[in-house]
Each structure stands twice: as C-alpha cells, then as structure tokens.
C-alpha cells in the first residue's frame, strides 16, 4: 500500500467559512430549564400534574395545551390506532431484527422507521380528505365512505368512545372508513397538516410494535417462516 501524505493545514476559506451564520441553534418547543418547558408550559409543575402523556404529546404537536374534550378525543384516536399487527411491514421487520440479534436500539429505530413509512403512505392516500377537512365545506369525499359492516361497526365503537368527550367531528356524520374517521379526529383536535398526522400515526403504533418485537426470542431461527412470502427467482431483464 502506498504511503499517506503528511497532513497539510487548510488555509483557504470556503463558502461555509465566510458566510455569517447564526451563532446559536434555535430551540422552538423545548426549553431545557430548569424547569423544562414545552411551548412555555412547565412540564414538571404543570403538564405532568394536569395532563396525560397523550395530551402532552398533543400539546407538543399543536403548541397549545388542549381543552379536555380534545385531549380525550386524541387519546381515543391513538388507542384506536395503536394495534399495528405483525402482518404489517413495521412489526414484521422489527420482529425479524430481534430474531437475528438486534439490540433494543436497533429494534426501536427500525420499528420507528417502518411506522413512519407506513404513516407516510396512509396519509398520502388521504390527501383529498385532509383538503376537505381544511376547507370545512361540502360533502365528505366519496373515497372516505364505506358500506362495509366491519368498518361501520368499528366507527360506531369510535363514536361511542368519543361521545363522552363532547367534541364533534364532521366526518363522523357520514359513513366513513375507520382510518378516515380517525384522521378526521386527529385533524379536529389540531393536527391540521400531513406531517403532524403522520407523527400521530407513527407514535400510536410504536408501543405495540415494540412489544411484538420484544416478544420474539432472539436466535430462535426455526420459529420464523423464512419462505413467507415465497420468493421465486427468475432470470432475464427486469419487466
């Protein structure tokens, strides 16, 4: 192998050196404290005493501590969104990572990444709904409606759970699919853009996805269906 040159000092200033950059990094939500604050609210002396973790999450995402009905509605929506089955890619991947010996950090990172991807796709499929919710007029988009009895029953359970909150969500006056209804609730409590709705979807799924993964026994290779789905190798140019 050839020898390395001696280190030579850099002398000529480049564009990053000459620009006038801010000298500090802006903190826009969390003030370190003490006491630590989220959007100005004292976490330890105020939020932790008067709000649930879900409501603190909503505070962080919207900037304002929610009134009781919206806070409870957000919790209910998160509960409905929590069970992400292992058949879906995020849980499948997190469990497989655990199987082959990933540590907790790797499992958590992978689960979060997979759930974020899932949330991105789900919200992108509801762009029309979000636009309708923003506009606040007209009939609900037909794509959000269903006559499926399982969906209708789930939405009925959602309505029953939300009844105690006193909060109203316009989409629930129609025949929405469950996910559309839940996005409607998230929008109604203040998550009015795609990134925040995606954040809520990803956050909601994380605990159950991690629990599913941590239930996998590391290195129990024969417990995993390696050939599911079956991949069939063929040769030739891509289609």
């Amino acid at each position: 192998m050839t020898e390395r040159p001696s280190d030579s000092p850099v002398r000529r200033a480049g564009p990053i050196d000459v620009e006038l950059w801010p000298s500090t990094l802006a903190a826009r939500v969390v003030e370190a404290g003490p006491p630590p604050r989220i959007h100005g609210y004292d976490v330890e002396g105020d939020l932790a005493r008067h709000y649930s973790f879900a409501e603190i999450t909503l505070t962080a995402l919207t900037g304002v501590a929610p009134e009781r009905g919206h806070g409870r509605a957000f919790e209910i929506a998160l509960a409905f969104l929590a069970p992400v089955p292992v058949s879906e890619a995020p849980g499948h991947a997190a469990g497989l990572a655990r199987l082959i010996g990933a540590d907790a950090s790797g499992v958590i990172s992978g689960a979060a990444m997979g759930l974020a991807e899932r949330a991105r796709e789900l919200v992108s499929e509801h762009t029309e709904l979000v636009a309708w919710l923003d506009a606040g007029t007209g009939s609900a988009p037909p794509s959000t409606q269903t006559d499926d009895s399982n969906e209708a029953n789930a939405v009925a359970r959602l309505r029953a759970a939300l009844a105690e909150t006193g909060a109203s969500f316009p989409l629930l006056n129609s025949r929405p699919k469950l996910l559309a209804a839940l996005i409607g609730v998230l929008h109604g409590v203040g998550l009015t853009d795609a990134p925040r709705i995606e954040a809520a979807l990803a956050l909601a799924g994380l605990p159950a996805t991690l629990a599913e993964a941590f239930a996998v026994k590391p290195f129990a290779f024969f417990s995993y269906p390696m050939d599911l789905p079956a991949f069939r190798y063929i040769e030739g140019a891509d289609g």
Partner: protein
Amino acid sequence: MAEPLKRPVLVTRVGHVGPDHHRFRGFDVGAELVGHESYWSLISLAIGGPRIDSELSRLLDDLATSLVGPDPRIWPWKLGRLMSAYGRFSVGMAGPLIMMSSGRVGPAALASVARFFDELARELGAELADEGALTRAVERKLEQVPRPPGFGTPFRNQDERNAPIIALVRAHGRENGPHFSLVQRAAPIVFQKTRLPVNAASLVSGLCLDLGFSPEQIDVFGILLLVSNLVANSFEGSREAPAVLKRLPAEFVRYVGHAARKSPRAESGTAP
C-alpha cells in the same frame, strides 16, 4: 455589550470545502484524486487508512464478488425488502443497517469477528505460530465466548463462500498473512470444541486485519463488501412495493398471545 460566544470546536481530518475545491484527508480532490483513485482507495482514505493500489482494489472487488448472495429470504436482505415495501430505496438501505448495527448476523458482525481474532493474535503474541499455544488460547476464548463470532452456518454444514474466498486470497498471494492463517488454524480447534464451522466473516476479517485495518475500520468493510446484496433487494423491493409485504394476508398470521379478556376498568364500569 455581551462577549461573543466562544463556539466549541471539533477537529476533523475528513474534509473541508474551500472557495473552489474540496480537501479530503489531506488531498485536493480535483487536483490530486480525480483520475487516480479507485472507489476502495477512497473508502480506505475515508476511514483513515492509506491510499490503496490497483492490486488491492482488485482483491477487494473479488472479495465483494465472493460475498454476493442476495436471496431475498436471507434475513438482512429480507429486512431490506420489508423496509422498502412502501416504495423508498433509501429506507430499504438505512433500516437494515440501523437494525443490524449490533447484530450477530449481517454486515455489522464483521467488526466483532475482527475483534475476536485481533484479540486472539495479541494474546498469542510471539507464540502465534505455536499450535499448542493456539489451542490453549482458543480454549480460553471459548470459555468466555462459547459461541464465538465468525463461526456457525445456519441451515447448512459449511459456508459455501469459504472455498472461493480462500482461492481468491491465494490467487492474490495473501494466504500466508498472519491473521488469515490464524483463522484457518483456529477453525478446526473451534469446530472440535463447539461443532461450529468457520464462516466467511472469519476469513474476510482475517484478510482485512492482514491488510492493516483495525476492527473499527473493518466494521466499514463489513457493510461495503456486502452492500450489493442490500442494494439489489432494496432497489427491487422499492420498485415493486408489494402489497403482500406491506401486509401479509391474515391467514398467514397465527395469534399465540393472551386470550381475550376485559380490563379491570371495563369490569368495574369505571371511567379512565
């Protein structure tokens, strides 16, 4: 007037962007590296190693080729398929690398294998060539690590990649390197004690140690030598984004968890 803040400073030897050029590890990229470097030499420089010549680059090319095995059912590549299922190649690449960063399977395993043999060689020291000393040292190692990294071949009796790797190392005249030799001499001792055959990670680690790279640097090679497998699966996976990987049909899931039950609050009818 408040005194200006004194920014914390971090020293880097990696790079600097100048007014009309980039410096990388002591070199002017445009003037000194473009047209003169192989990709492997760039990687070596990136991790603090020396520029490497064309022969060594060819060796690394051959090594990477010997490690091509992108069957999508192999676990790290299956992770690439799952993570790219929503259509993004980058996530298919990043997800498995993050998830396997501590694993015993996949690219990151190479660093732990390199550490194992590096420690073994250091422990032997001047007795590196002594077979009795080697046997005793391996036995001591196995007391600490009963399942040493770099050994074991799931679902088969031997690693089919070993023979091509040994052949290419021999073709490049590097079969007598101390660590590569150590791996091959330690392998039968480990097998006799554990029934675990040596796998390709051990051979690759031994060779990389002989090339002068540290275990931390070999961590990088673990990823780069195997990356074509992940690229292949993440690329095809992201293009196809198959529904069946986003969600397996329900009939292929068997629930083995807790039976259906009511929560205490539901039983008592109390509100949350």
